[in-house]
């Protein structure tokens, strides 16, 4: 206890130096908290977008369909999926088609859905901005940006053509989900119409399954153990396209970068402590000559480094969590994300990004304190371990 008091007193002796040291740690702590929150928030927004809008938490399809998502690899018989965590399931039939308005022709992926089944599974039916969701065959619901691009309005007919057939469908709803794939490329038709457009005797191309958040991978894995031969289930992370690589790449870049930040902050703390120790070598020599063990002196220096960075950590945690709270409850990144969605409309990005808020980030940031103490023990501490008291006491 006396060691702690001593260390604390020494830290307070050089208030300006301590304040500058703490500022470095504050900066790094805020950066660590914010970057972790941003990365996790980005990951969560991707999972949300793919699980609730673009795909589903879990998707079951033929192995051939996963290789080549063509209706020829569709399901002639719908599988019976049983798992205690399954909350809803609905067949879907997706196929590539040409969309023709009087002004423009554009290719896209048409999603054939069961209107009622989709309500239990996806948030898309609840994001209809104009008109209504599908209720019967002969209707189509479009992403509102796609409708603008094709220049079709509610009540008008849109021609959907595939290699196997063509249908004139009435536009009954426009969806604004805030997810690029839905708003810019969403084409939802009744499952019956999709079956006719596919021109094959299939009932669906895949079955979308709703499971609780966080259970996607485990449910998919357990389903795979009981699925009939040739069928395979995938969790939401496996359903993401190239954007998953972007997210994982970001983590690979930012996590070492944060480690480097923390190391540099600890080095800054320790280098200052080193200078401080060198200035006080005579003082330490006197204390040692009075019977204080060199190891205890080294421990005191390590404690000083830990306390100085600890002050910064506390202030950094307050500031960092304040920032995280704000950015996790306010759409601060909305304009930036909307720009990203414009640039990459089919990447599955959401127009909203909220940072994650997790206590564990504080633990990660506190590593800078441990690192400072360790480095202080290694460098200024070692200086004290090799101290010759007689040399300094004599004033040489």
């Amino acid at each position, binding site marked *: 206890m006396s060691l702690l008091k001593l260390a604390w007193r020494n830290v307070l002796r050089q208030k300006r130096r301590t304040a500058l040291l703490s500022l470095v740690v504050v900066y790094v702590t805020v950066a660590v908290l914010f970057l972790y929150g941003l990365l996790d928030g980005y990951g969560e927004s991707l999972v949300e977008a793919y699980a609730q809008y673009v795909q589903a938490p879990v998707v079951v399809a033929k192995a051939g369909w996963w290789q080549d998502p063509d209706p020829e690899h569709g399901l002639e018989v719908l599988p019976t999926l049983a798992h205690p965590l399954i909350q809803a399931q609905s067949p879907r039939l997706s196929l590539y*088609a*040409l969309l*023709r*308005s*009087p*002004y423009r*022709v554009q290719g896209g992926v048409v999603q054939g859905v069961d209107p009622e089944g989709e309500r239990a599974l996806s948030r898309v039916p609840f994001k209809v901005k104009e008109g209504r969701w599908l209720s019967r065959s*002969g209707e189509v619901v479009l992403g509102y940006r796609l409708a603008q691009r094709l220049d079709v*309005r509610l009540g*008008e*007919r*849109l*021609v*959907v*053509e*595939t*290699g*196997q*057939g*063509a*249908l*004139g*469908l009435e536009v009954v709803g426009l969806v604004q989900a805030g997810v690029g794939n839905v708003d810019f490329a969403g084409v939802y038709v009744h499952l019956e119409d999709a079956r006719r457009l596919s021109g094959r005797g299939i009932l669906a191309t895949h079955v979308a399954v709703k499971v609780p958040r966080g259970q996607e991978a485990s449910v998919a894995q357990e389903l795979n153990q009981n699925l009939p031969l040739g069928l395979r289930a995938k969790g939401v992370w496996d359903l993401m396209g190239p954007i998953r690589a972007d997210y994982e790449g970001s983590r690979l870049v930012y996590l070492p970068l944060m480690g480097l930040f923390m190391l540099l902050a600890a080095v800054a703390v320790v280098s200052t402590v080193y200078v401080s120790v060198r200035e006080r070598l005579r003082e330490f020599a006197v204390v040692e000559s009075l019977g204080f063990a060199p190891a205890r002196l080294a421990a005191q220096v390590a404690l000083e480094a830990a306390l100085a960075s600890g002050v910064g950590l506390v202030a950094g945690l307050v500031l960092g969590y304040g920032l995280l709270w704000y950015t996790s409850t306010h759409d601060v990144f909305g304009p930036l994300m909307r720009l990203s969605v414009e640039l990459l409309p089919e990447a599955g990005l959401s127009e909203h990004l909220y940072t994650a808020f997790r206590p564990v980030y504080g633990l990660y940031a506190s590593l800078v304190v441990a690192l400072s103490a360790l480095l202080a023990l290694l460098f200024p501490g070692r200086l004290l371990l090799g101290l010759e008291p007689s040399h300094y006491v004599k004033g040489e």
Partner: protein
Amino acid sequence: MKGMLFYLPVLLALASAQTPLEKLRIALDRLRGPAHQGVYELQVERLEFVRTYRLRVYTDGKRTHLRVLEPGNEAGQAFLFLGEDLYLYDPRLGRTLRLPPAGRGERFLGSDLTFQDLMGRDLEEFFQVAETQGILVLTPKPAAPTPYGKVEVHLKEGLIERILYYDQRGQAVRELRLAGYQGLNGAYLPREMELRDLKRPGHRTLLRIAEIQVGAVPERCFNPLYLERGC
């Protein structure tokens, strides 16, 4: 009895009168002309450029084989329209491809013409036909796969003179004009075809017949295998 005799000519005239659908059918049949081969000039006009193609054409009225002669960088491309089937040979790929039916909506050589305009009978299949003041007015059948809200077909002496396509808001978006009909072996062929995109001023496509030779066309011309080597 006397009264019946009076009405007989009227009844006969009514019986022989063509329905609007029949008029359309006959006009479309006439549009195809007789079996012939020739050279067509296709001029694609845009605000920024004008591009002219010369095409060698072989047709029996129902099936058509087209080969691009000029410009040099696109020469060798060949198209074969066999009713619902559409084949394309691209010399750069060195392959003949069968286009899916959806490909019929694609623009032909970047012009305003679609493959459907060249080969299709959509006007008969997808529309209900009525006649108003000598103009055939076509409205889509329920759920018909056409993006148009109305099509007007203007006839002159049973031949199509103008086709006006309207969007579903009542605005004319596309106009096709046919002129210079030539009687050939009892059939008719328009020597000039002009297609204008009414939504985009300056977008126009002209198709003219430069050379024509009426007569039977070898059957091999309608075989996809002959797209590459020519017939």
